């Protein structure tokens, strides 16, 4: 089998992993003339986009799609009939360098099916990174999948080469994971995430204490992340977001990715064979952002009785409609915390409002220059030349006017 054919099989096998980030790592480049590559610590770079709207930043592949596990939702499960392939370490190294030199990618995201044992699999994955870093002095981005229960020395070595490590929790509820992925052990996954956090903390504290003579071993400067599949089981949005809050707090994850379960070739009958719930996935990302950057608690975001986020309107707007007594809010006076809760107000807009209002008051005509959608925000705010009609906030019709005419997709809000 030639490398091109292997690449087709092993990229196809890797595409259900949503993560493709190349951001948030340390600053590195090759201007010393010794190696190849650099990082873009600020925002990462997406070198292309596929028609599924997902960015292509890294060469995202499996080392092999042969797997001992039989996770029902997974295209690579042991009982699937998909064609199998396995890259050699050198093939992955060469492909990564060849793609990188042409500016196709920011680096490599390498994962693998579990073959032989956790340690054997992890050792194979680590060998690729070791070769890239040590023999080729590759300074680009590396994301490695961590195999739960792999030996501590291997994990420490992985963290020495990788910018990011990740372990996918896949399904939020333990009972459901046991059914869908009988060999996976969520406790082992959590224990390994815990080990990663201890190592990340240690490296982080080392950096803080002695910025120059740092003696703590380097460890995954872009942190760790995970992924949950949405829609493969009956877990509610509340359950998913509770799990996220727990994981963010417990293991300081940089990101939790949500991946709408999508039909796979040669799928198991035990799973819903339908179009992936893309709008639900989008709402979960919005809710995740509200938790991390807008000061919301899970309990506030999801309506207690429903347990699910509204698909029609975004979760912040839904919250505002449930808490109309807190509005209208005077934009020229309100605190940062309160401003962040206004529908249509993003973190950047709020920063600009706070800077602007020190100098001059904010009027309705200014909203466009702050990139705030007027129709969404106006019913909830007071400006120096605008006050919403009191009937509007109390009316049943307010919620109606936000119902979408067409399905909204994309991540920004």
């Amino acid at each position, binding site marked *: 089998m030639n490398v091109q054919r292997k690449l087709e099989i092993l990229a196809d096998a890797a595409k259900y992993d949503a993560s493709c980030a190349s951001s948030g790592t340390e600053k590195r480049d090759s201007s010393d003339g010794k190696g190849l590559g650099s990082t873009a610590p600020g925002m990462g770079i997406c070198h292309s986009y596929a028609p599924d709207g997902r960015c292509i930043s890294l060469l995202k592949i499996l080392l092999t799609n042969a797997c001992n596990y039989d996770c029902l939702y997974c295209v690579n499960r042991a009982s699937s009939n998909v064609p199998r392939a396995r890259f050699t370490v050198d093939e992955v190294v060469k492909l990564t360098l060849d793609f990188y030199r042409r500016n196709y990618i920011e680096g490599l995201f390498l994962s693998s099916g579990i073959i032989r044992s956790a340690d054997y699999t992890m050792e194979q994955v680590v060998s690729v990174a070791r070769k890239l870093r040590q023999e080729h002095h590759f300074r680009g981005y590396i994301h490695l999948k961590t195999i739960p229960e792999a030996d501590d020395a291997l994990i420490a070595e992985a963290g020495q080469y990788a910018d990011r490590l990740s372990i996918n929790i896949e399904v939020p509820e333990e009972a459901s994971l046991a059914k869908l992925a009988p060999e996976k052990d969520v406790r082992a996954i959590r224990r390994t995430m815990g080990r990663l956090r201890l190592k990340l903390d240690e490296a982080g504290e080392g950096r803080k204490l002695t910025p120059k003579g740092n003696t703590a071993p380097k460890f995954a400067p872009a942190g760790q992340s995970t992924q949950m599949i949405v829609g493969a089981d009956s877990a509610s949005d509340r359950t998913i977001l509770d799990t996220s809050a727990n994981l963010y*707090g417990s293991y300081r994850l940089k990101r939790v990715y949500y991946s709408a379960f999508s039909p796979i070739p040669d799928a198991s009958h035990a799973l819903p064979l339908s179009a992936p719930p893309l709008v639900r996935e989008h709402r979960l990302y919005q809710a995740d952002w509200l938790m991390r950057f807008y000061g919301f608690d899970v309990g506030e975001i999801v309506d207690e009785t429903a347990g699910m986020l509204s698909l029609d309107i975004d979760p912040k707007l839904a919250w505002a409609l449930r808490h109309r007594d807190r509005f209208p809010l005077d934009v020229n006076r309100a605190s940062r915390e309160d401003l962040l809760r206004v529908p249509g107000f993003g973190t950047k807009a709020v920063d600009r409002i706070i800077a602007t209002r020190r100098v001059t008051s904010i009027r309705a005509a200014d909203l466009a220059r702050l990139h705030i959608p007027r129709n969404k925000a106006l019913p909830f705010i007071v400006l120096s030349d605008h006050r919403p009609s009191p009937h509007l906030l109390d009316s049943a019709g307010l919620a109606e006017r936000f119902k979408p005419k067409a399905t909204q997709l994309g991540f920004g809000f």
Partner: protein
Amino acid sequence: MHITLDSETDFDGWRQAARQLVLNDVRPPEVTWSVWGAAPGLFEPPDDVPPQDTPSGTFSVPAKFVDLAQSAILHRNPERFAILYRLLWRLRSNHDLLDVATDPDVSQAMTMAKAVHRDEHKMHAFVRFREIGREQKSHYVAWFEPEHHIVELAAPFFARRFADMAWSILTPEACAHWDGRAVSITPGVPKAEAPTQDRLEETWRRYYASIFNPARLKVKAMQKEMPRKYWRNLPEASLIKPLIEGAERATAAMIAGAATTPHKAQKRPEPVMPRTPSSTAGDIESIREQAAACRACPLWKDATQTVFGEGPPHAPLMLVGEQPGDKEDLAGRPFVGPAGQMLDRALEQAGIPRGKVYVTNAVKHFKFVPRGKIRLHQKPNTSEIRACRPWYERELKSVQPDLVVAMGATAAQSVFGKIMPVNKTRGRLIDLADGPRALVTVHPSYLLRLPDAEAKAREYQRFVDDLRMAADLIRKPARAD
């Protein structure tokens, strides 16, 4: 007054001219700007040289204006020089103007700067090198069509990234080259001068097609980030149309296709991580294994793992704490966090070697509520303490210490099987039902929480004194009295 700048990116020229104009009180409407040779219009006014003799007086601008102007000046909008001059003019009387994001001039300048940075970012992303020659002598050449005047701005990024290869980025307006030592800029060239193929492009296109998930078409999201104007220079873009067309067919086939019978050859080997068979033996290791799977109260769910006791299997002294904390939960070992460090110090001062101590907790899972990036410790309640007590009882039975030290109220409640006020019972030996004695003291984390230094020192000393009692007792076990 008309000013002609040397080039589209002549920031220094603009800055010098603008400075002279401001100092000479030339109002913005009186100035027009153009770039040398860019648009030699018939009605272009003759060049005015701004007065060179600097009038007295200086003025300063916020540092962020310089940043903003340096970026915005690379925008292709011919009005940019005038907008920035107007902004500069107004900044003299209103130093905070740049904070007013709602001001039309500020807003426009910021929008231009943002567009320039986006274009630069997209150039970093969408340049595609093609290799000419092979191996050591190869040269990598790309053709790119930026929207703004950003070639010089974007070039250093490629120099830092591809330091070990010779490369050129050709564009209609300017070209950037790197020879391994320095970046050089030359005039623009036509597209025909760029190479048209590369041996890796077919492999890259196959990757692009394979990483695409046809079940989740989001064409608008793709176009928002990768607008059509870039497509003509991206080797993978010719696949977009056929992939979209094939997507619905492919998805329908996947949904309609029944799951096939698994290959016989794909028999499932042994699970990689063998589940430990639970043992019923009474030694501490087998109790630990059983406790790892404990579900007697709901705390296991949010925690990472059971944090079981640790120490010599027949230690003369057993220390019982409340519950594992954040660090203990991650490490799976008791007393490794800040309270553990405090305890270690106190033990050493009391003359108790860690090797003689078995440390454990009344409750063996971490109870907390997540608050953003941290976990707030929660005190375990009576039913959780009760649910966990059998593990403590089995540890006690297995280790058989001479003395149990209960640190804090939760530990005391577990050790005595009922609520015991720490202050009333502290510092005296109490006989337990079958064998060992017990001593009550505070939990080391209580010492960590005390706000004032004096109280902290005093309470720490009392804690060490309590431990000294324990030290005396294990040195001469006096069960006979």
